[in-house]
């Protein structure tokens, strides 16, 4: 294979990877504070994209995105306040079923309010056909925007969880909620905050990738499955892990297309996921000890 083509496949892989990674990162925040997987994460991504498209009719792009992120954050808070907060010591299974229910509810509400049509924000720079040429390889500027957003989110989360008091409280809450409460941490508020935060990040991801992937009321499920896959693969709870795993899966899928029929693309990524989980049950970058603590 020519070098130029190899690089072009690599770019395709990076494009898939960023999309998976930005969605996967969102899963980790709620997992980090509550130990549950929020299956409505994909719907937050959809909500962000759809709201931004609607707002963009009235205000400039940056404002529309900021507005969409704020609206989705409010939706995240609402979901937590109405469905999660009042539960006394909910089991993980119960919370998962609740989030699945919420995801269906949001999807149907979106269908009623926006209809079934497909929308997208305009390209942030250039348009649908523009691409940057780097040594014979073509890259859409929107891919670079997504990549930059992805990096920004990870850096922000790393700083937030490691170096702010609020972030440390959230981590304490995740490690042991009772102990955290005994130390005077308002655990219920932190769970709300984690929903707000992950809704916001999901919405931002939804805005940035919408020119590439489009958005419609029903895109949440598909994105959530891929995002969930990379979050597990990278090790639940690790944002860096999710990003690394996202790129790994993306690049694998792209190169598998070059060698095999494209229909096997998803089979390849799931096969890799299974293989890695057999060898490293806590994911590529996850720590086994931390996972055991959570399930204990």
């Amino acid at each position, binding site marked *: *294979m*020519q070098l130029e*083509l190899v690089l*072009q*496949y690599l*770019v*395709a*892989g990076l*494009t*898939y990877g960023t*999309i998976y990674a930005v969605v996967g990162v969102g899963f980790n925040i709620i997992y980090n504070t509550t130990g549950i997987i929020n299956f409505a994460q994909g719907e937050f991504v959809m909500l962000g994209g759809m709201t931004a498209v609607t707002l963009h009719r009235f205000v400039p792009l940056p404002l529309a995105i900021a507005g969409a992120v704020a609206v989705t954050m409010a939706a995240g808070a609402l979901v937590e306040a109405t469905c999660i907060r009042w539960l006394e010591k909910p089991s993980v299974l119960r919370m998962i079923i609740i989030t699945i229910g919420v995801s269906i509810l949001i999807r149907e509400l979106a*269908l009623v309010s926006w*209809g*079934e*049509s*497909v*929308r*997208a924000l*305009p390209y942030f720079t250039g*348009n*649908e*056909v*523009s*691409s940057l*040429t780097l040594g014979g390889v*073509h*890259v*859409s500027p929107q891919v670079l925007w997504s990549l930059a957003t992805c990096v920004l989110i990870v850096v922000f989360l790393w700083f937030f969880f490691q170096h702010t008091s609020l972030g440390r409280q959230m981590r304490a809450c995740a490690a042991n909620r009772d102990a955290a409460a005994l130390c005077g941490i308002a655990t219920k508020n932190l769970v709300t905050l984690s929903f707000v935060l992950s809704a916001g990040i999901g919405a931002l991801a939804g805005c940035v*990738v919408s020119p*590439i*992937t*489009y958005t*419609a009321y*029903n*895109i949440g499920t*598909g*994105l959530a499955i891929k995002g969930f896959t990379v979050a597990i693969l990278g090790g639940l709870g690790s944002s860096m892990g999710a990003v690394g795993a996202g790129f790994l899966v993306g690049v694998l*899928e*792209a*190169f598998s*297309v*070059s060698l095999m*029929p*494209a*229909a096997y*693309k*998803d089979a390849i990524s799931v096969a890799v996921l299974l293989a890695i989980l057999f060898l490293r049950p806590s994911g590529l970058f996850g720590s086994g000890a931390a996972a055991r603590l959570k399930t204990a």
Partner: protein
Amino acid sequence: MKTLRLAAAAALLAAAFHAPAAEQEPLKVGALLSVTGPASFLGAPEARTLEMLVEELNQKGGIDGRKIQLVVKDTAGDPAKAVSFAKQLMEEDKVFAIVGPATSGETLAVKPIAEEGKTLLLSCAAAEVIVNPVASHVFKVAPKDGYAAEMIFRRMKKMGIKRIGFLSSNTGFGKAGKDQVEKLAPGHGVEVAVSEVYDKAATDLTAEVTKLKAANVQAILNWSIEPAQAIVIKNARQIGLTIPIFQSHGFANIQYAKAAGAAAEGVMFPASRIVVADSLAEKHPQKAVVASYKKAYESRYKEDVSTFGGHAYDALMILVRAVKEAGPDREKVRVALEGTKGFVGTAGVFNLSAADHNGLALDAFEMLTVRDGKFAVLGE
């Protein structure tokens, strides 16, 4: 309880059969449509079209003074739901005929039930197998996918294209199209150098188009009804592919051309004329029909017409015409449907027969292109 009430109602009706004609029981027409779910962009405009037409017809006094009652069931695009709703429509609602389903998969699931229950079914779906082999009570109003492929290959021949890359999605529509394309290509001297199937929920297809680039094909042909058909053309242009791009008749929904923006310019595809209603010549036989339907639909629902809503229009109007001609007797209407000749609909001119339950010819399709963000006739 329900059956009791129904029986009581029937007894009352029987007692009142001397009542004047104006109080006749309405003619029930069922509709099995994917109003929500992944195929909602087919079913939703179809359901809206039916509601609009039934209201219009009833305002004009219905069929010879008899009102039409529409019973819409939302299948959400699920063949299993389509089957159970079909049974409900036939056994509980006792409908005279059913319009739909909107998708090929659902129609094929419902076909044997309609045939067994001797209920007329007028499908709005594309696959040729719906009417081939012919089932006596099953009709379809959407043009065949084989004709779409034929139109595309004729164009390719004219342009001297001999080697193409083919992409399709993993749906009933994509698979049926793939079969037709691979069957018809050799007859037109076209080699399908690469044929790839992608997931219907695909969000980026850069790797697939890179594979086509590597194979040095002269043109791309894509066959799907999902947003992926807009993603394909964007990705192809982004990696610097400038070769001609062809799409199936699934592209005939302006929202995909809008979604692909600048990348959609110059894309060629076959479609029925309803999507270019404005640029049809005044003397074109379909002009009056498509223009009046388009005007009524767009002013009522504030959205662009699509070929799909047009299929519902054709199905209901062909049925109404047959009922007017033969009276409300199912077997007589069935024969009248088979005898439909020269019916001008949104999809073309229908000439049905006992052997052809579709009745559209190759000329139902026109080759279109995208010019300045709008559909336009491709011309010579």
